[in-house]
């Protein structure tokens, strides 16, 4: 699927305006606004508990924002409409795969859930794409972390989403597996898929992205084009933010 096959009111894949998620005293996301164009790759950095995961959960329709709006692939996420979910794929540190089923069965199941016309064939091709076709009849339980992550990529892009969300995808991967993941991301990026990724890994995150954001205490302290960023300066800023866990709005790394 090409990213603009569906009539979209703007050329932004993701539009976020004053997004807030709070409950009582907890403020997970506190007034975030940004735009992401089709085909762009955004890396969001931030210390633990900064609200990165909550942001992704709102954008993927898993949870409702308290206020503000977010449009993903032209759909208002607050409506939680199923059509929006067809346009997005999600990869997180948990694989979302049934351990007692085989990779093929897993993918067929998710293909059916997404209403694909030929779940069987799509599952086969997806397995070949990630190089797991030889093991398609083994139980997922026997898979290594790296293989699981590859299968989880296959699951996330099975329905050919135009936007991909990755929530700390490198956590717990060895060097080889994370290289494989990077390759896949590069391919997807080259295919003009919109990608939003949260990560702790500065070099990995800065390597591929077009836009960089730093989220601290629920707010975007920083949202810049990769061209305007000096890597070393950003690293210091990021580590400062993690150490102080402080809202550092207004500090520019250049």
């Amino acid at each position: 699927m090409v990213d603009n096959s569906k009539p979209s009111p703007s050329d932004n894949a993701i539009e976020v305006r004053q997004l807030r998620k709070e409950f009582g005293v907890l403020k997970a996301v506190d007034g975030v606004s940004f735009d992401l164009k089709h085909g762009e790759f955004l890396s969001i950095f931030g210390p633990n508990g900064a609200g990165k995961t909550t942001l992704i959960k709102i954008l993927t329709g898993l949870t409702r924002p308290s206020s503000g709006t977010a449009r993903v692939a032209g759909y208002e996420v607050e409506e939680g409409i199923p059509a929006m979910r067809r346009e997005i794929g999600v990869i997180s540190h948990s694989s979302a795969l049934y351990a007692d089923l085989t990779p093929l069965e897993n993918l067929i199941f998710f293909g059916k859930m997404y209403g694909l016309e030929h779940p069987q064939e799509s599952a086969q091709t997806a397995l070949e794409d990630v190089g797991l076709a030889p093991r398609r009849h083994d139980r997922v339980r026997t898979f290594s972390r790296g293989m699981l992550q590859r299968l989880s990529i296959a699951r996330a892009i099975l329905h050919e989403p135009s936007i991909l969300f990755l929530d700390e995808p490198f956590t717990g991967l060895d060097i080889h597996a994370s290289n494989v993941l990077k390759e896949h991301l590069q391919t997807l990026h080259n295919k003009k898929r919109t990608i939003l990724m949260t990560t702790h890994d500065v070099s990995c995150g800065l390597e591929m992205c077009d836009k960089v954001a730093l989220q601290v205490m629920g707010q975007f302290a920083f949202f810049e084009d990769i061209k305007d960023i000096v890597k070393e300066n950003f690293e210091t800023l990021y580590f400062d933010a993690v150490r102080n866990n402080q809202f550092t709005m207004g500090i520019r790394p250049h």
Partner: protein
Amino acid sequence: MNPDAVEEKQEEGNILVWLTGFGLLMAMIGIFIYVPTERTEGVIQRIMYFHVPCAWLSFFAFFVVFICSILFLWKKDREWDIYAHASAGIGVVFCSLVLITGPIWARPIWGAWWVWDARLTSTLILWLIYVAYLMLRAQSDAGSMRARYAAVLGIVGFLNIPFIHFSVLWWRTFHPQPKVITNEGIGKGMDPSMLATLGLSLFAFTLLYFLLMGERVRQEKLKDEIDRLKREKLYSS
């Protein structure tokens, strides 16, 4: 909150405290001095004048939980969550009092502490449901998940009441038939003085409910405020 509003609130609270105290005192006088002793059951029948209000109060409290749960799922406002929580706690306390006074009455009248009578049984089941509700709240961390789950249970639990009522009623019943509302109309089965005392007692207990609600809600709000400040402190240091 500005200081004026706080003061005003406190004043209102004080009026409620005095009113409740006065109401309870009057009810006590009614129960022990004014009302005549019932012919068949004797002096023990006087338990009824606070047994029934306790039951009414706990039932009313559970109804408030139900309403606040619906409003919470609709509005997603922490306020409703606090009300539901506070009301469930008060309801369980008074439901426990019903379960204690019931057997004390039953022992001399029926000759047994516990009889599997319809109303006693339904009260016990109701008590179990709302204890489970409070346990659910205690088991999960503060946040919207806890509030949503509790709200769902608050709704599911209250809708269970008619089912409990009929199933237990058809199962068996020994309880004295309600005397206040009989087929002949309201209040026909009782002496006017008894009815007045019961009414007074019901009124005083209802006031007591609102008094307790105020305190409980304030407690939750204080906890929230402390949480908020602690969080602020954590991030600013």
